[in-house]
């Protein structure tokens, strides 16, 4: 095994997060009575260190472990997004964990391990590394989804997620096997070289492997027709974990998908564009139309997150610089606005009453103005109303689509986002323009950590919306370095 050098810096974020995870486990079993805030603080400090470590590879790209790992701008940006998402998730959880669930040290540790898996997915340039990261992430999430052990929805969520996730992993693994069988390698550079010389349709077996991988990734990013698990799982999982799944896990899926697609792209473009086109269109239409009819806000956000995956696929399809940088910008803003939206739910919920139906939100503006304003901001941003970040993000993606010639797909995207405005605004109407029902009052105590997390998310969508150019130009450097 020549060239198999240990490059600790290349996997520094992953290493730091893994060690952090073990440390949390050890602390949890050694000091079962430890104050949750202390442990949370330790996790956040660990995240900060991992964040700085991820930034290291921005200017200093390196290949490590015989090409299994590539630490570059791409992995750096994605790792930062994951860690930001995880940080906010921890922020949302700090107060909740103890009150609602036991074993908060396990909860924190699982979030940390999941994040470690995500960073591996962003830096993997070998199908096996990608798979390893995906499984690390998934297994942690299976457990987290069922963390409210006494809640039947949670059991359902965990069970379904596990069964289907394992099923989808099977597809993925089979796809990897086929591709390995044809190209003799799982290394993305070698696979890319094969695609360059033979074309993606050069061998039916290879293309079959490609399709199986699409199924696997499609499950992770929850696009049609592999999306059915998402609403049930988001509904049943603890709210911060739903947020984490809808953002971090989805972003990780896209990171892996992008790495893979870039390898597939180095050829005459044919074969897969139609497939992605259809999947993207169907995902946008279904996600948005079904979301219209949801009265449970968590389910509504789940369908909306399905629809957003459809929008992001436009960037994948476009495959140009704007598209790639647009995806990363979108995922960054999406992380903030979605965690924020779930955060508000989490902020308002108590152990006895989960704050999730539309009627719960009635008249919130007068009883909890902070929560109502924050929720409205997140809804507007998700709907893509300027000047919030969601608009900018959509604009970049859609213009990438137009530039690459997918005008009809962009038209579908625009129409469906018009539709989406209806249900996002529906929630705002409930909060600001309806009077609250007497018995449903928001009784949740003020939770400073959650409030801070929500404020950060709100500030972020404002800044990213009003001053996006700096970030976008950074991501464009990134995208250019990929091509």
């Amino acid at each position, binding site marked *: 095994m020549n060239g198999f050098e240990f490059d600790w810096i290349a996997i520094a974020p992953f290493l730091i997060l893994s060690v952090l995870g073990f440390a949390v486990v050890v602390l949890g079993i050694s000091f079962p009575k430890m104050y949750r805030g202390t442990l949370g603080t330790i996790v956040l400090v660990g995240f900060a260190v991992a964040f700085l470590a991820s930034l290291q590879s921005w200017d200093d790209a390196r290949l490590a472990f015989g090409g299994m790992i590539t630490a570059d701008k791409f992995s750096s940006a994605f790792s930062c997004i994951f860690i930001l998402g995880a940080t906010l998730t921890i922020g949302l959880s700090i107060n909740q964990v103890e009150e609602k669930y036991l074993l908060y040290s396990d909860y924190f540790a699982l979030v940390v391990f999941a994040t470690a898996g995500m960073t591996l997915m962003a830096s993997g340039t070998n199908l096996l590394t990608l798979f390893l990261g995906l499984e690390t992430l998934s297994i942690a999430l299976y457990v987290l989804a069922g963390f409210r052990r006494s809640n039947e929805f949670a059991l359902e969520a965990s069970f379904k997620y596990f069964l289907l996730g394992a099923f989808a992993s099977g597809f993925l693994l089979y796809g990897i096997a086929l591709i390995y069988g044809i190209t003799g390698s799982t290394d993305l550079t070698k696979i890319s070289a094969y695609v360059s010389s033979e074309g993606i349709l050069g061998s039916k077996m290879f293309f079959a492997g490609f399709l199986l991988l699409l199924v696997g990734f499609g499950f992770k990013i929850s696009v049609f027709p592999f999306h059915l698990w998402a*609403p049930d799982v988001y509904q049943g999982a603890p709210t911060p974990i739903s947020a984490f799944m809808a953002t971090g896990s989805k972003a990780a899926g896209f990171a892996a998908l992008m790495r893979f697609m870039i390898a597939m792209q180095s050829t005459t473009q044919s074969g897969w564009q139609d497939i992605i086109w259809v999947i993207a269109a169907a995902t946008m239409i279904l996600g948005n139309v079904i979301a219209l009819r949801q009265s449970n806000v968590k389910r509504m956000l789940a369908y909306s997150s399905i629809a957003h995956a459809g929008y992001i696929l436009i960037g994948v399809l476009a495959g140009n610089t704007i598209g790639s940088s647009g995806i990363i910008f979108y995922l960054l803003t999406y992380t903030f606005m979605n965690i924020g939206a779930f955060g508000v739910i989490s902020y308002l919920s108590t152990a006895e009453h989960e704050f999730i139906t539309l009627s719960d939100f009635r008249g919130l503006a007068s009883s909890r103005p902070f929560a109502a304003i924050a929720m409205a901001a997140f809804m507007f941003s998700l709907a893509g*109303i300027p000047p919030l970040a969601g608009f900018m993000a959509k604009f970049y993606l859609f213009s990438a689509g137009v530039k690459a010639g997918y005008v009809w797909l962009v038209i579908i995207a625009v129409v469906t986002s018009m539709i989406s405005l209806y249900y996002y605004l529906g929630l705002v109407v409930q909060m600001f323009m309806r009077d609250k029902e007497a018995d449903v009052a928001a009784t949740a105590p003020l939770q400073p950590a959650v409030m801070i997390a929500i404020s950060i998310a709100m500030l972020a969508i404002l800044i990213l919306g009003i001053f996006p150019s700096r970030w976008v130009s950074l991501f464009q450097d990134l995208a250019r370095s990929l091509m």
Partner: protein
Amino acid sequence: MQDYIWLIPFFPLLGFLINGLLGKYLSEKVIGILGSAMVFLSFSTAVVLFFQLTQLDPENRLFINTLYTWMATGSFSADVAFRFDALSAVMVLVVTGVGFLIHVYSIGYMHGDRGFARFFSFLNLFTFAMLLLVLGNNFLIMFLGWEGVGLCSYLLIGFWYENPEYAYAGNKAFIVNRIGDFGFLIGIFMIFGYFGSLNFDTVLSAAGMQPEWVITTICLLLFVGATGKSAQIPLYVWLPDAMAGPTPVSALIHAATMVTAGVYMICRTSAMYVLSEVALSVVAIIGLLTALMAATIAITSKDIKKVLAYSTVSQLGYMFLAAGVGAFATAIFHLMTHAFFKALMFLAAGSVMHALSNETNIDKMGGLKNKIGTTYRTFWVGGLAISGILPFAGFFSKDEILWKAFSSPFGSTVFWAVGTLIAGLTAFYMWRMIYTVFYGESRVDKEVALHIHESPKVMTVPLIVLAALSTVGGLVNIPHYFPMFEHFLDPVFMKYINPAAFEASHGSFGLELTFAAISLVVAFTGIWLAKVMYVQRRELPDKIASSVKGLYTLLFNKYYVDELYDKIIVKPFVKVSDAFFYAFFDVKIIDGIVNGSAKIMDSIAGVLRRSHSGVVQFYALSLVVGAIALFGYLIFG
């Protein structure tokens, strides 16, 4: 000074933030004064800028205030930049000037409403968005404002949300506007795709280089947006329902400013429209048809605000007619005079409603002439102005439109003839209302009659100011003798196009005078007919109505357009979404199908049932089916 353009939208934004965030803690007085003062500050800034603008040569009258680069992708970049040229100047002055008066009026009108602070913060937010719309230097800022005003309109229509019918009206406005916005947004994407820029100057100067079909498509898409926002066929249905909002909102948003956004947008992009004869004709014909249709509906309507609403739709149709024959300056001129007299009439109508405990049915009014004198006199001025009586503001702008509709190279005799007919109808329905409301015997409910009172000064003073503007506002543009307004605006419209194309193709000064005389006669005939029917021989209207019963019912039911839309669009959509998407894919229904009988048994333990359901197999199946479909593509594709 041009670096301070941003102050114009900034003040209302500040007002919105203060009133929105701290409104709970402030008294009505502070809120009202603050909200109005912020708009007045914008107005003052705009006035100063306006005078500085006039100091420059006509060709150079352009201030641009770039704040920062909003976004940049490769060769494309869009700035947060404001543009203050003759066109923006007129729009800003109208928006802030009329807006200020309406803010002041609202202090009295909304007095005691529990949403007082919310109302003023929304109104300020609206002003902010509208100013962004007219000041933006590229399509994106314009779109930002476009969405913003739509949002505020929606929030303000449903302001009194306790009434479900009002909330429904808000919904309707929202959905209809979505359809329009969709066209607008696609248009913007096409501009981006073909021009690589969204900057007005860059796009408009390059418009000549694009193939005609591209320009036509873009123009038509933008016009779809305009029909939504400016309530033209086929998307006008939301505006009459929008009258559910408080009357100052109807005056500001649904008469004077927001609904004119479509006209403004077409004038702003006029350099593209003149390149496409198809697009121009579509604009003119839709405008004319809308004007005619709305005017006929207004004849039978019995709701004081609905008559004004249909009249607004009709007048907007006039503006589009003007724009459609290439007379952009005239369109903006009418936009301005219309803002004066329509705001006046709405506010006066609000004052009537104020006096009559919010009664809107004109059959329950009558004889109010002496009881609310100021309101009556200002309404009377508005009536003369909209009917186009010399020398009121409406005469000059409307007459100019009719003349251009005939003489412009894009015009025709038919345009002029129908337009003149509509002018007669306008005079008729407007005076029908005035005579019914203010003359004759009182048909007011007894209890209400006891409380009739003139509105407070804070409401009547804005009325008087607007009445003055409606009287003299037209004098800024007297054709041939004093065409100041046109000369001020023309450089904006002629910048990228050849002025020779707009020389009147036919017609002479003598003919123009004749036409003016004809339209005066028509207007007076309309007023006279109204007087005969509604003052002297009150039995006539019913007789006529029953003799042409079919036509009357058709008009009274607004051509059944709402019902038609409901049948062919709304119902099928709901059906499809229910039957297909929802029933087929939503889990609850799938549960029902899969578990059929089990569902009934388990309905008590409804929650438990879900965790025991076999649905997960279905999910797995969908994964497999999806994979198989992909393989189908592999084999057969």
